[in-house]
């Protein structure tokens, strides 16, 4: 009766002593690791990879070695969250100017594009875009098969049933940019989060305008928005043939929104309430 008890106790003791010895003998963890763990506590822990590192912990390690990484590879989820941001600022001794780093993803297409045929292949945008430049009339439009919906770590993207294209909820979007990389037609753009006006056309052939045969609601390059602007906040980019917005000059008068004949200028807050034509 005594032996089993003694042996079990003995094995337990030996195991405990072994752990103690291993703990003592091995070299202590480097100081950066401790810091990395502190940083890691203030990271979202979703391991989305948008910062360019394989996971939150490797990002934390990189940050603890060189805090400038935060500017070159910004974690956008941290930017959105006051608590995480202040935690990181404290641990890393940083001062972050939020407005210059914060971005929102926007689907720069107004939808309602007609199909040129029936597509019955694998239901991903990547596959569909390889066949005849996609099944929509405009080769630059959103295909609406939802590759971006799958990839969004915030579940901020849904399929708009009125327009049949992806729609991003600006409140949920943290600007990580994963959908931008995912979209095979480069329809999704990152814009500064404090932008007021969003331009919803992705047409890229500079020689011509989309015209009626490509899209009913594409930009027709009329430049009415430039003329309508009361504060010279909109300039025409000749190289890309699109309007550009100066955030500091914009006085939120909404003149350009009303002037646009195609109704493809909308406010960022109202982006999902755009009228379906």
């Amino acid at each position, binding site marked *: 009766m005594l*032996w089993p008890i003694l042996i079990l106790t003995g094995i337990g003791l030996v195991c405990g002593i072994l752990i103690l010895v291993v703990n003592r003998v091995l070299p202590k*963890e480097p100081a950066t690791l401790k810091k990395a763990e502190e940083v890691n506590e203030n990271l979202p822990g979703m391991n989305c990879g948008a910062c360019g590192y394989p996971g939150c912990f490797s990002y934390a390690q990189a940050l603890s070695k060189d805090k400038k990484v935060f500017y070159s590879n910004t974690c956008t989820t941290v930017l959105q969250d006051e608590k995480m941001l202040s935690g990181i600022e404290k641990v890393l001794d940083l001062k972050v100017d939020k407005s210059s780093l914060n971005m929102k993803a926007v689907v720069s297409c107004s939808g309602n594009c007609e199909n040129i045929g029936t597509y019955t292949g694998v239901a991903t945008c990547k596959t569909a875009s390889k066949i005849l430049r996609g099944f929509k009339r405009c080769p630059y439009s959103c295909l609406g098969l939802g590759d971006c919906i799958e990839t969004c770590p915030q579940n901020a993207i849904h399929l708009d049933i009125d327009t049949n294209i992806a729609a991003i909820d600006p409140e949920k979007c943290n600007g990580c940019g994963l959908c931008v990389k995912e979209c095979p037609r480069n329809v999704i753009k990152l814009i500064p989060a404090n932008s007021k006006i969003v331009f919803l056309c992705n047409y890229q052939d500079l020689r011509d305008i989309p015209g009626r045969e490509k899209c009913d609601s594409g930009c027709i390059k009329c430049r009415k928005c430039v003329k309508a602007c009361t504060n010279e906040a909109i300039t025409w980019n000749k190289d890309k043939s699109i309007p550009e917005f100066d955030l500091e000059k914009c006085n939120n008068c909404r003149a350009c929104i009303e002037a646009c004949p195609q109704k493809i200028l909308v406010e960022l807050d109202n982006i999902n309430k755009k009228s379906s034509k």
Partner: protein
Amino acid sequence: MNSSASLITIFIGMAIINNMILTQFLGLCPFFGVSKKLSNAISMGIAVTFVMLLAATATSVIYNYILVPYEIEFMDIIIYILVIAALVQIVEITIRRTNIILYNALGIYLPLITTNCAVLGIALINATNNYSIAQSMVSALGAGVGFTLVLIIMSGIRERLELGEAPKSLRGLPVAFVTAALLALAFMGFSGLL
């Protein structure tokens, strides 16, 4: 009194014929939990193989030199739990201090494996079969390889299944259960090989 089975027989027997997951139904938790992605399945498989090998070696030493001479084989489960938990703890500390990258790759899985029934199962199977230390190590290696093999097959199938259009009620885990059942049936074909 050790068993006289040859090492190759033990290895093939544990890896394929008496496969941990599909024939003995041990370690089903990681089988469904970690088989969604091929890369995760491979790291889990390697971690389990490693821990199994360590645990089987340690427990068979204890079995052959402590439990059998003092005739307290009935204590095997509680002693094995103690030893395996301590071992995994030591391994975790060692990996953490020496190779942080490996620790991050295995880190989540190592504590999970501590209480994995497959690891305890292999120690108990070795004990019931009266395997010597070398035989125990080979049988643990075989079990680990078999575990990894099934995890890789399953994750490969599940990655494909994600692309296919299953009926709505079957999507996700239900179709994985059906797949697992078919896989187990297929592995039954190996019975009687040796």
